[in-house]
Each structure stands twice: as structure tokens, then as C-alpha cells.
């Protein structure tokens, strides 16, 4: 079994266009869940979202390249560029064959699909744009990354709703650990601000009318966000031999399925996911110094996640900092795990815990130290990051500084 180093990070979301910008705002507790650029007509029941407004596609791609790239694939490629640049890897013939690209996306390319439906059903025009299929396929981001860097190893996409990118990272981790790959570019991306999708979320009644307030007594739901996070995972010895800076290590991965209800969470599933991840890492729960929570800000998730954490961590949960950075960058669905994995690694590396912002007062059903509103310096060695998806699919990663 090989150790798995993280040697590159790339991030685009509402907080900024790169890791440095995002980290500065995460630590400053900046909430970028802002009024929607298009409030909808009639207006959506929610007025805000975490849009990556500073992301300008033409800053990164030519007009011609954009013909085949939907926003979620653009975000994936730009995050991958930053991560690969930091890693300093060049994909020579041998490495190109032994590098994987594994991305997560819950919904793929929604915009082209909706444009197609408008033509078909509203305009009664049966001629759909010819590139609709390659634009909308969920693996468009992974394939773009493979094409751009000339990577010939295993390339695929995992789609498990809000757990997509933790599952993608877990797969990549297992591959590098097991020796099937020397390196992997893994993470996820999502672009959710398409009208049909927003109307569907509206109908689910889980989106907060203003901002999301994870673990707070007055929380009223999640806030949608868009973005991408990509990590370069690398065989530890390979990274060391190159003399590159190692940014952290992935040491454990756990998955579980609730088999309980299609949308309602239960305590046992998330608890098992954390338990398997800890067991995989060979760590007792007491060793964990921080949890980046799934923390969506819905009534059900935050209460259930709190109970699951109490179940696994016992008395340690009294003094275990748990924060939900979704309060700043929104819930980016299939990108959530990747964005939060990067946040967790930076938390360990810099010894400062990003807060749960928009927090007003404690909910007795969420008895956790949620690092309310203010970042907190702390000496940290090990951390867990959780994702729990609709469909009852849970995935947890364990990181070491």
C-alpha cells in the first residue's frame, strides 16, 4: 500500500477564482451567497445563490473551445489547471498512462439540455444543437482535463448527487494507494444556475429563502452554489523523489448507503461512513481534530449529522470543532466534496479553522462546537470531511496534515 500525497489544489467558486482568493475569504468568514443575477420570472422562492460571478469563461478559453464546453466542464478544467500547475507534474509518456482523472458531477451540462427543450417544446423546432450530447455528458469535465493534459490512464466520472466528488476522490485515493495509478487529478464541478433546475429545487422546498445557516436554530434550508475543486493526488514516494511540496495526505476513505429513504437521512448511514473512514485510516475517533461537515443548513441534515458525529465521537464531540463552509460558498452539489476537501487540507496546513457563518443561535438538536462566525486558530493533525447525498449515499475522507 502506497501513501497518498496531495501535491496540487485548484478551486473556483463564489469565493474566488483560485485557491488563494477562496482561502482568504474562507478564513475571513465572507458569505458569498448573494442576490441571484437572474431572480427568475416569476421570482424563485429563494432570492440568493453562491454564483461564481468572477469566473469569466473567455479569460480561460477561446470562443472555439467554448463551443463544446458547458460551464461545469469549464470550471472543472480551470480548477485542474491550477492544481496541475501547483503539482509541477508534466505528463510524459509513462506518467500519462499511469495518471487517472476522476471527477464528480451530479447533473452534468444542464444549460444545453434546457436550450434543447426550449427549441423542441416551446419553439416546436425539432432541430436540436448538434453538440448537445458532448456538452451535456457528465464526463465532459473529466474528458476535457484528459485532452488538455494528454492523460491516457483511467478517466471517468462519478455521479452520486451531493457525494459525487467525495466518491471521486475516494476512488482516486484507492487507485493511487493500490498502485493502479501513480497520480490522479480528482475532484468535482457543478453549474446549477439553470432555470429548470432552479425550479426543481424550488419545488423540493429545501432551499433557504435568504442565506443558509448551518446548525443554527433559525436555519431554513440550503443555498445553492456553483464551482469546482480539483486535487492532484500522487504516490508519496513519487512526490518525494521530485522534491515537490507535499500539501497534505489522504489517509482514509469510508462509504455507506442508508438504505432508508430516497431523501430523508438517518443517523446510522452517516455514522458508518465516518466509522469506516476512521478504520481505513487506522485512527481512533479521539485523534480527529476537525470535521468539515456536510452541514447543508436543512432541518434534517444538520440534526442527523450532529447525532451521527455524537454517536461516533462520543465525549470527544464536546471539544471537536465542526464547521460548515457551505455557509460561505453554498452547496455546490457534485463539487461540494472537492471544494471542502481542499478547505480541510488548507485548514490542517495553516492551522486555522474556517467558521460556520450566518450562525445566530445554537439549536439543542445540534449539540456541536460549530466554530460560529469567526475563524479559529488551532494546532491540527487529522481531519474528516463528510458528504451525504440524496439517495442515502454517504462518503467521508480522512486527511493528515
Amino acid at each position, binding site marked *: 500500500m502506497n501513501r497518498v500525497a496531495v501535491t496540487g489544489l485548484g478551486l473556483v467558486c463564489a469565493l474566488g477564482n483560485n485557491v488563494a482568493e477562496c482561502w482568504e475569504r474562507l478564513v475571513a468568514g465572507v458569505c458569498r451567497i448573494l442576490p441571484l443575477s437572474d431572480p427568475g420570472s416569476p421570482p424563485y422562492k429563494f432570492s440568493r445563490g453562491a454564483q461564481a460571478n468572477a469566473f469569466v469563461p473567455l479569460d480561460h478559453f477561446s470562443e472555439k473551445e467554448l463551443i463544446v464546453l458547458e460551464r461545469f466542464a469549464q470550471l472543472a478544467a480551470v480548477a485542474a489547471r491550477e492544481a496541475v500547475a501547483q503539482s509541477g507534474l508534466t505528463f510524459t509518456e509513462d506518467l500519462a498512462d499511469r495518471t487517472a482523472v476522476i471527477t464528480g458531477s451530479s447533473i452534468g451540462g444542464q444549460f444545453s439540455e434546457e436550450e434543447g427543450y426550449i427549441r423542441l417544446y416551446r419553439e416546436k423546432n425539432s432541430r436540436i444543437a448538434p453538440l448537445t450530447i458532448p456538452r451535456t455528458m457528465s464526463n465532459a469535465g473529466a474528458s476535457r482535463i484528459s485532452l488538455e493534459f494528454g492523460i491516457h490512464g483511467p478517466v471517468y466520472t462519478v455521479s452520486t448527487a451531493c457525494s459525487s466528488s467525495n466518491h471521486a476522490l475516494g476512488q482516486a485515493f484507492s487507485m493511487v494507494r493500490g498502485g493502479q495509478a501513480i497520480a490522479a487529478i480528482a475532484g468535482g464541478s457543478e453549474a446549477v444556475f439553470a432555470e429548470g433546475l432552479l425550479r426543481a429545487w424550488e*419545488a*423540493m*422546498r429545501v432551499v433557504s429563502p435568504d442565506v443558509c445557516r448551518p446548525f443554527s436554530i433559525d436555519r*431554513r434550508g440550503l443555498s445553492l452554489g456553483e464551482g469546482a475543486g480539483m486535487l492532484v493526488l500522487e504516490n508519496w514516494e513519487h512526490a518525494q523523489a521530485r522534491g515537490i511540496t507535499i500539501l497534505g495526505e489522504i489517509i482514509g476513505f469510508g462509504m455507506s448507503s442508508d438504505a432508508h*429513504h*430516497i*431523501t*430523508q437521512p438517518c443517523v446510522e448511514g452517516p455514522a458508518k461512513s465516518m466509522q469506516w473512514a476512521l478504520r481505513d485510516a487506522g485512527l481512533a475517533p479521539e485523534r480527529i481534530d476537525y470535521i468539515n461537515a456536510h452541514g447543508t443548513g436543512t432541518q434534517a441534515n444538520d440534526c442527523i449529522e450532529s447525532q451521527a458525529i455524537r454517536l461516533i465521537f462520543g465525549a470527544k464531540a464536546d471539544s471537536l470543532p465542526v464547521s460548515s463552509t457551505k455557509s460561505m460558498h453554498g452547496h455546490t452539489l457534485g463539487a461540494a466534496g472537492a471544494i471542502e476537501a481542499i478547505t480541510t487540507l488548507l485548514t490542517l496546513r495553516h492551522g486555522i479553522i474556517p467558521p460556520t457563518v450566518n450562525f445566530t443561535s445554537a439549536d439543542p438538536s445540534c449539540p456541536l462546537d460549530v466554530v460560529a462566525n469567526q475563524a479559529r486558530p488551532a494546532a491540527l493533525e487529522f481531519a474528516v470531511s463528510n458528504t451525504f447525498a440524496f439517495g442515502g449515499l454517504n462518503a467521508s475522507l480522512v486527511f493528515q496534515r
Partner: protein
Amino acid sequence: MSQQSASADLGTRVMEVIAKTQRIPLESISLDSTFEQLKIDSLDGINIVFALENEFGINIPDEGVQTMRSIGETVEGVRKLVAEKTAEPEGPAV
């Protein structure tokens, strides 16, 4: 909805919507039934509320949904919202 169901009393119409949405026989529902007895969970509830909004041309706010745990409570909730709509046809004058 058909004229037939529009002419039925409001309680019956609510039960018809629930029966149709849940794909259960109308006879299995009474004003005394709780959602729990009918095995209606929160996700089913979202579907039912959506169908009721369509049927009665009303907007059921999230707070309203939380007070509807039985057929009787749902009928009362809908009755109130329909009455408000009739009293203020131009929408709430807030």
C-alpha cells in the same frame, strides 16, 4: 380538474388530490386519517402540497406545510388559504 370534482365539497376535493397523488383508493382516506396511518412521509408531502396548489390555485408556504400532519389539518389549511384568496383576489395587500 373536472367540473365534477370542482363541484364536490372542499374536503372531498382535498382527499381526491391526495388519493390521486399517492395512488391509493379514495375510500382508504377519511378526515380522521393521519399521514402516518396513510404512510405519507415528508417527500410524499411535498408532492401532495404541489398538487393541492395546482388544484386550488393557492400558494402553501413552508410554514403552512409544517402544520399539515393529517387529512383534517390539510383540509383546514387549504380552506383557510382558499378563503384568503377569495377575500383578496388581487393578492395580499401587505
